[in-house]
């Protein structure tokens, strides 16, 4: 029952989706000290995938995501749990943030940390949850 979209929608989806995914990664990595973070980044990425779904239908979106959205929820929760344990190894209270700055060429440093791992977990869980909703709704309307 999926009606073929229009040329404008195809072109807009092809053009906007990669930009939106890049913007979501930018929001994710900027998260800790400035506005951003895993939740809003996940919502933006889910918006990108929903745009693709509106244009090309649910089967192609499943192919594009490669992984079932429900599996993504599990991976997100796993990352969230993993981020809790390094603090225990250091003898600090559970979930205490650990920072491992990695210097990069050019005088900047990449702040690898447990909050980043936790944010990636939130990101994956949010993408998985929203895409599970959206794909299920799109498929139920096809019947």
């Amino acid at each position: 029952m999926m009606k073929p979209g229009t040329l404008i929608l195809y072109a807009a989806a092809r053009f906007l989706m990669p930009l939106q995914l890049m913007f979501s990664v930018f929001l994710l990595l900027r998260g800790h000290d400035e506005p951003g973070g895993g939740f809003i980044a996940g919502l933006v990425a889910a918006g990108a995938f929903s745009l693709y779904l509106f244009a090309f239908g649910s089967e192609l979106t499943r192919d594009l995501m490669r992984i079932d959205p429900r599996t993504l929820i599990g991976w997100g929760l796993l990352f969230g749990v993993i981020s809790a344990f390094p603090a225990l190894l250091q003898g600090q209270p559970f979930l205490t943030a650990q920072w491992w700055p990695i210097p990069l060429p050019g005088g900047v440093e990449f702040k690898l940390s447990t909050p980043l791992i936790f944010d990636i977990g939130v990101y994956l869980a949010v993408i998985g949850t929203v895409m599970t909703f959206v794909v299920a709704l799109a498929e139920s309307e096809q019947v």
Partner: protein
Amino acid sequence: MSLAAYITLIMMSLALVVVFIRLVKGPTLPDRVVALELMASIMVGMIGVHAIYTNSSSFIDVAIVMALTAFLAAIGFARFLERGGPRHD
């Protein structure tokens, strides 16, 4: 500059009120959808003015997310209207 920001915000607020009237009155569903889209666009403009007024660039990202979401909502509503419109098949 703050005077310009105030004037712009006042005008945009008035525009929001007018759009809200259309949203409530709008005889058909497409009217209401267009009103909602216009509301989102005005909100993007307000966020932009606020970003200039407070001199913080973080609000620009909010405006970007808002605009993208509004675009997505427009497409979703359009598909809904297409499906709910008069059909004979």
